């Protein structure tokens, strides 16, 4: 009996697989490019595909199936742009989802703007992404300009104003550093006590830490991608900088490799994000449970929550869009999807605050999420733990000139 069930389930799955892979004119074609180099990356790529499959299994969008193509850009801009081009010009997609790295999303914005394809960004914080004036781009995560404000406010009020900056050269970290610096100056009138611009994948921070140690700072901002940040955190302790000097993480501090690699050095590090696994809303608890069961994720970070929110927002928009889905209607359908996303308002999902878009091609309209949550690690390592320190919603204009 059980065996028969399995066989039957297998047949159904194959049938669904065939249905989703065959490119019927009536399909809604969605292209996805993401950084899928780590286990987490693989998992949230898989989650997006699974959620889309669930939509199809439940009857699709007004009877139309979503045909999704998932590609890996390894967080490399050349790969990301190549993926985008392939998806847009060969697969003729209606909608692009990507990428999860600012340095990749930024150049893709130009590609989608030129081709006229709506682009939904699951995770990239660099403020410039929405400042290019593209009417095709929608950012689900919180922009770096809000993060900078939240970080600076918290740091200035709770930690002190003598802050050392370590800024790696990747797009997200450069943006995070600049925002923090700007906000610290605007709110508290202070410049960095020390600032080191290091390489994206710097391995040796010892000289900087040595200098920082001799300066008696209140805190250190480490703005870098996860692995680089973890190294810097470890080396800050090795250099003998005590726990009383707070370590502030940039946006990538939310990535699981940070506490995993940094271990004890992650404890006390805090950062702003769009989602906290320590969130105790029922929806968050369910989500944590789902990612743990399906993908074995210990505590999903906002890469997961944002990817999930993105699929939900996409589902809403596609349902509202008036789609022809014929060969001749590609351009028209793309525009319809764009306008449908732009009219999403007050979506409440996993993100710490509501997400809204509007029609103008401005950061105010296209940075959909303005609520950041401040999270601190209370324990590092494989089974890290976090706490929510604060939750702040910013004005739409915040951080713009």
């Amino acid at each position, binding site marked *: 009996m059980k065996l028969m069930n399995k066989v039957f389930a297998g047949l159904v799955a194959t049938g669904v697989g065939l249905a989703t892979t065959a490119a019927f004119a009536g399909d809604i074609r969605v292209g996805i490019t993401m950084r899928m180099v*780590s286990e987490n990356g693989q998992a949230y790529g898989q989650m997006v595909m699974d959620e889309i499959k669930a939509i199809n299994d439940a009857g699709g969008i007004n009877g139309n199936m979503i045909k999704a193509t998932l590609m890996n850009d390894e967080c490399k801009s050349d790969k990301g742009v190549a993926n985008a081009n392939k998806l847009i010009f060969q697969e003729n997609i209606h909608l692009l989802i990507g990428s999860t790295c600012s340095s990749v999303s930024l150049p893709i914005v130009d590609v989608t703007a030129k081709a006229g394809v709506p682009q939904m960004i699951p995770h990239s914080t660099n403020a410039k992404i929405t400042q290019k004036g593209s009417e095709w781009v929608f950012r689900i995560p919180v922009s770096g300009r809000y993060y900078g404000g939240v970080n600076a406010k918290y740091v200035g009020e709770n930690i002190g104003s003598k802050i050392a900056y370590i800024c790696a050269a990747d797009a997200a970290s450069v943006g995070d550093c600049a925002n923090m610096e700007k906000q610290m100056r605007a709110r508290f009138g202070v410049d960095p006590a020390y600032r080191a*611009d290091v390489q994206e994948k*710097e391995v*040796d921070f010892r*000289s900087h830490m*040595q200098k920082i140690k001799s300066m008696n700072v209140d805190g250190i901002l480490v703005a870098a991608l996860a692995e680089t940040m973890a190294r810097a955190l470890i080396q800050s302790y090795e250099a*003998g900088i005590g726990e009383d000097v707070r370590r502030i993480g940039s946006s990538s501090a939310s990535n699981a490799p940070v506490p995993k690699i940094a271990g004890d050095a992650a404890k006390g590090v805090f950062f702003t994000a769009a989602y906290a696994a320590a969130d105790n809303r029922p929806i968050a608890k369910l989500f944590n449970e789902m990612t743990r069961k399906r993908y074995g994720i210990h505590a999903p970070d906002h890469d997961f929550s944002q990817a999930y929110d993105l699929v939900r927002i996409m589902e809403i928009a596609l349902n509202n869009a008036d789609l022809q889905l014929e060969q001749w209607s590609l351009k028209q359908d793309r525009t319809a999807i764009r306008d449908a996303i732009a009219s999403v308002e007050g979506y409440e999902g996993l993100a710490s605050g509501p997400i809204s878009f509007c029609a103008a091609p401005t950061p105010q309209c296209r940075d959909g999420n303005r609520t950041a949550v401040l999270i601190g690690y209370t324990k590092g390592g494989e089974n890290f733990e976090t706490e929510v320190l604060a939750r702040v919603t910013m004005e739409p204009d915040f951080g713009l000139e």
Partner: protein
Amino acid sequence: MGFDFNSLLAFIIFGVTIGVVYGIVALGISLIYSGLDIVHFAHGEMYMFGAFFGLVLAHNVGVPYPVALIGAMILTAILGMLVERVFYRRLTRAGGGYTVAGMGMIICGFGMSVALVNAAYFFFGAEAEPFRANLDYIPRLTFPGDINVPESYVLTAIISVLLMAGLHYFLRHTKTGLAVRAVAHNKDIAYLMGINVPLMISLIFGLACGLAAAAGVLIGPMQSVQVEMGYLMLMKAFAAAVVGGFGSLPGAILGGIMVGIFENLGAAYISASHKDIYAFLLLILVLMFRPSGLFGVEAKVKA
């Protein structure tokens, strides 16, 4: 801000501690070059595999760090010998260095590097792995000016120096070492001396890869372990070997230390955002004014 002598000292000390590690990798590259006339482009991957072997031994098998270090050296040496035996031997037999086969060897090295990286992705995964070593028994050195040198760096420096001394003793004062040097200079004549040349070639490869593994296990606790770590190390070690004089063993070490100091000073006083450039800047400067490197011997003439 004025000139801060203490931080200058710190930069130099840290430069030296990382430089000796470049040095031991460069030592291997130099050893293989002087022994076989081939530039081993897959050496960075030996360093990476060494780090992973050390990690697996220390974390999964649970042996103490020093044992993991030695174990990783042995495993990587075996890996290196296998790679040489199976893939390189045919090409080296046809002559290294300046011959057409030498060109093939270079390409083969690149190919091997790619193959090993992919194998490592398969076995170890793409994620960076933390390498936690319990080093409480190593003293924390304090230099004047409150420059605290963490234990792992002290350990790195000590072990690197020991390895170099060991290699030096082996090459200068043992009969097998003499044979290795003979093979390095001229394989035909080494044959005529009754030296088992193929065995010595394996030995050279094993030694060189073992040294790279030591560097990997030493760097692991500082920088975490990751499949892509080999490439940058290869570049630095390469610069070290050229700066010191390709094929010269003391040159490799001093070249490594110079690269380490130079890049730390460059990062501190010029700009830290292009740190990896300084190694090559030094390399270009040295090549401009002393093409054979600081300790380079003249290109050897083959019989």
